[in-house]
């Protein structure tokens, strides 16, 4: 039992991406309710009451985020972060592809609550098909009077533009996204000022993830208090999780927050292939510190995962079974972050490069166990010292891997040194079993 389905209730209905089917399923009724019967502050109150937390990664309470928007008479903006660049995350993709109007409805509701009159969807460049679908949906919504001036006769108007990114991970970071949207190099900005005060074009800006916005119509429909009953006290509602890696049924699943992680990985995704065991798993995207097979029974919600020194993040569960060497996972991950580091702040720019170099040496058997200490220490030097969280996003999982799988790292070094004719003293050992054995430690 995984709890109620909200976002995915009709998700596989044919034609849901068209406005007719969406409206037949009750779409845009929440918007009508908001615009005809509610004040912006009441919408914010509903969101606060629902306990909805941001679904993009940071898990910040969405209602409070909107309430930070100053009530001054300047142009305000709502930006939907559809960059979904966190490795392992693909939930927004399905949501946008199959139910774009749910997102648009959420955007209009969110903008109304925040007093924003201009809104943008920043979608990653690789989502070509999804971008076309949303573009078509925006046209439909505008023609139906759900976007543009004087929506549903309420006097509230909103413009919505879709902007395609060019494939940089850093443009999923909210301030990097804003710079990119403004036409600049996508580099994160110093905070404060926070986007709520000075965001897009220096105006107050709400930035929300696709799933967060798409949830808003449902909260309006069922009422914040009702929504809050789902999930746990601190993690209300349902969450889309993207399960990938060594599982038999990878894909997106909607779960009620607070169910056990084993239920997701084994129950929904079918667990690793026959005869394999879960070695480690990323509970919330590639930037979350890894958990091991021993942690499978912890509840999947914001607080429990935080207590386990990891995080729920974007809800992307990547499962790694015991056939995969931890060093190759670490190296792949570090290379990704090195490639995506924007280069603005020192610890991330230099730390990611250094970490990759060290991991390559580990992989080739050119390292010593002392290098593992240095690697761990470098991760410590990155965490908390960067301009944005990209540096931490590499340092946390790598640090956790080195800490939890140190034996395997050391064995890998030994095995690779033995195999590498340039590294060790002895002759290269052609036996791959040794390598396999190392990874199975």
């Amino acid at each position, binding site marked *: 039992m995984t709890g109620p389905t909200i976002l995915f209730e009709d998700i596989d209905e044919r034609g849901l991406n068209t406005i007719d089917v969406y409206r037949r399923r009750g779409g845009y009724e929440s918007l009508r309710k908001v615009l005809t019967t509610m004040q912006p502050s009441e919408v914010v109150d509903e969101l606060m009451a629902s306990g909805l937390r941001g679904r993009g990664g940071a898990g910040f309470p969405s209602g409070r985020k909107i309430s930070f928007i100053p009530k001054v008479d300047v142009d305000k903006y709502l930006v939907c972060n559809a960059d979904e660049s966190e490795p392992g995350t693909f939930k927004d993709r399905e949501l946008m592809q199959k139910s774009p109007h749910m997102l648009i409805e959420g955007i209009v509701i969110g903008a109304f609550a925040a007093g924003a009159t201009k809104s943008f969807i920043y979608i990653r460049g690789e989502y070509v098909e999804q971008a076309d679908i949303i573009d078509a949906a925006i046209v439909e919504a505008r023609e139906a009077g759900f976007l543009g001036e004087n929506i549903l006769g309420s006097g509230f108007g909103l413009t919505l533009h879709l902007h395609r990114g060019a494939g*940089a991970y850093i443009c999923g970071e909210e301030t990097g996204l804003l710079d990119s949207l403004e036409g600049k*190099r996508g580099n994160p900005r*110093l905070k404060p000022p926070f986007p709520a005060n000075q965001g897009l074009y220096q105006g107050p800006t709400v930035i929300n993830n696709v799933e967060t916005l798409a949830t808003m119509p449902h909260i309006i429909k069922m009422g914040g208090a009702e929504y809050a009953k789902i999930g746990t006290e601190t993690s209300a509602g349902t969450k889309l999780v993207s399960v990938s890696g060594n599982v038999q049924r990878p894909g997106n699943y909607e779960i009620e927050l607070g169910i056990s992680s084993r239920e997701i990985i084994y129950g929904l995704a079918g667990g690793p292939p026959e005869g394999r065991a879960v070695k480690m798993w990323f509970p919330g995207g590639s930037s979350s510190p890894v958990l091991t097979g021993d942690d499978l029974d912890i509840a999947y919600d914001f607080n429990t995962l935080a207590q386990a020194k990891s995080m729920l993040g974007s809800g992307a569960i990547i499962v790694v079974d015991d056939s995969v060497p931890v060093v190759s996972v670490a190296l792949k991950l570090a290379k990704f972050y*090195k*490639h*995506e*580091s*924007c*280069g*603005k*702040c*020192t*610890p991330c*720019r*230099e*730390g*990611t*490069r*250094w970490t990759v*170099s*060290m991991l390559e*040496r580990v992989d080739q058997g050119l390292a010593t166990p002392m290098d593992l200490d*240095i690697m761990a*220490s470098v991760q410590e*030097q*990155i965490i*908390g*010292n*960067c*301009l944005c969280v990209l540096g931490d996003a590499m340092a946390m999982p790598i640090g956790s891997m080195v800490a939890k799988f140190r034996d395997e790292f050391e064995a890998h070094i030994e095995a690779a040194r033995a195999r590498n004719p340039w590294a060790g003293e002895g002759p290269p050992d052609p036996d791959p079993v040794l390598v396999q054995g190392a990874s199975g430690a």
Partner: protein
Amino acid sequence: MPRPAPDTIAFTVDGLEVNAPAGMMLADAAKLGDVEIPVFCYEPKLGEPVGACRMCLVEIEGIPKLQTACSTPVRDGMAVNTQTARVKEAQEAVLEFLLINHPLDCPVCDKGGECPLQDITYGWGPGRSRFIEPKRHFVKPLALSPLIAIDRERCILCYRCVRFSQEISEDYQLVLQERGADSYVSTFDGHPYVAPFSGNIIELCPVGALTSQPYRFRARPWDIEGSGSVCLGCPGQCNVEYTVRDERVLRVLSRQHDGVDDGWLCDRGRFGYQSFHVDERVTHPLVRVDGELIPVAWDRALDEAAAALGGAGSDSGALAGGKTTNEEGWLLQELFRGALGSPNVDSRADGMLPRELHAALHAPALQATVPDLEFAHAVLVLDCEPVDDQPSLDLRIRKGVRRNGVKLAVASSRPSSLDANAAAVVRYAPGAGEAFCAALNGALGESDAGPGSATRKGVVEELAEAAGADADAVRALAAVLADAGEDVVIVYGERLTHGARGEDAARALLNVCGRVAEAGHDGAGLLEVPAGTNGRGLREVGVLPNAAPGLAPVSPVGLASAELGASAAAGAISALYLLHVDPLRDLPGRATWRAALQRADHVIAHADFLSEGLWEYATIVFPAESYAEKEGTITHPDGRVQRLRPAIARPDAVRAEWNVIADLSKRLGHDVSVLSGAMASARVFEAIPFYAGLTLDELGGRGLRWPARPAAAGWPAADTGPFGLETPPHAPTPNGALRLGTFRSIWAAQEVEVAPALKFLRQRQRAELHPVDAERMGLAHGDRVTVGSNGSRVQATVVLRSGVPEGSVFLEAGIAEESASELDGGGLVEVSPQ
């Protein structure tokens, strides 16, 4: 935007209670308690902090994460720790990261010994690195421009240079290419970074990544001495520090003075020092013998000059160029008025302005200061191009617009580089400044009084048409000035008050000023961009045909420069004295001046280079000091008297010019009793009522604004408006020909032509045309053309600019060859293909 009011708060840093202005960044505020927080990317001059280098992380009680001191404003009661283990760890981490890719080639690096990275590594670094992998490599050094070398391996990617290019000089040329650890600084398209202010990035660079090509490998920090003075390159009078090694200037650095230059220098000021040490320089007195200038002893040169001047008596005249100090100018007018009885002294280029108008335009009550530009509600840039005429103002105006929301209005004939930042722009016909001011005055009158005002209907249209401007654009500009607030500053070029109708133009300007800026209101008023470096000072010390020192009345009134030229050309002047000026190069009307120099019996000049007019016509040449050798005072356009201090010894036989002029005066029987530079300054301060009480010690290294001192009461009575004015003349109708406008670019200067590093910037004549005019004449960009008028002509290359008003052509003056001053005529020229 008015200046923020200072508000003091108390906070604790490392247990020490410190008072600091509220809102000051922690990195600066900590210094007030003698605590240094290391920084790389932070530089307040560059505007908002970016927090990129992470060097300044500190612990603030109550905040769990370490915070960047560069971006955290101090608040009352804040408790900051910079010495805890956590902070130390973070600092060591950042330095270890920064040194990962740094080549550590300090022994061969220009920056070694004066390098923030070196200093901070010694002070805060971990001492050893655990990095054993290969470093990042780049081809190095590369020429970022002919002036700047870039070593990308040394670069720590602090962003300072990129921010300077993007946010200070706004030339948008420098960018970071690539991403992450592969990032490097470059121009976007790989072109050389050539810009008026590019050299500042050398000084901003906290490592040896950006080095000066002319200074590379010339000295180590322990070989050199710093010597402070003031740049004489333009009226901006930026404060500089000369780097001196063995009596040679090897480098010029900024000596930050927020009241003058804000800590920036233009490239002409930064690299022009090479002109002090070139072979072309005149270093001995020269006398023309059998048509050739030959070096002679000082006594002979002085005797011959004294004889020539004594013989000419009142049939003599003197001109002082902009680089003349107050002392030299005062002595010059003593020599002419006192010893020769000649009233013909002038320091202005073209035409005479009544004494009372000088007094009105520069009255202390109407005087705006340079920092006012930053905090004004609105700034009108009128008939000048700051980046060319006084570069430091350009940066100051951009700063005001960018950071404080100053409303900028630009009114000029030639398109300005500030247009893009302006809330309103008016283009008028070249030379129609008077008509424009009258039209603006009319438009302001309309908005002042609303409908039914005294301003006659249609008058703005008439006047705008006379100015060749668009009436609606004039109204829009008037609205910007009228609606902004009370702090309105008008920055105007001295050229507005030049020419036959300069007097009317000055009156029209005063009328405009009377409408937008209240006299005596701080932060509002007029700020002139003089044509010469010390233009203001020279007028104040009496180098004017119609005013004695202190702008006192004088009788008889002498000849102004243009009249002097005409008079000499007619044979009425026997001796011409040229102090730092070559009329053929610096003044309009080359044909007249050529005749004048040819006709005069004696042409006596002080010069450091033999430019065309002197080479051909001077009979006696005294070697002039370079400005690193000079002592004396000069007066900034906003009234700040600044002191020049000699940085190097005078080469060869060069003598101080005050000394030469005083010597001549004595030989001619008028002993001014000036035996030292300091005595000369004292005499100037005595002679001018509103300088009274100044001393060199008081001026010190920062100068003093005399309008802010009590002695300013000695300023003479002014002829203040509003003036009833006759209708200004209509700008000439092109009618097939083109209106000629002239300008002088930042690179039109002697030092650019002789300094080896700057020679590549030497200007060649170009004719700036509107594409429509060019098409009508069948001309394309890059074509060679002849621009002619009344038989005189210059050769030029066509440059198409869509901002140039149709029916006009712009040519450059003040350049060595094919200067626009060759063209005489009624403001209309013909352009024909070669």
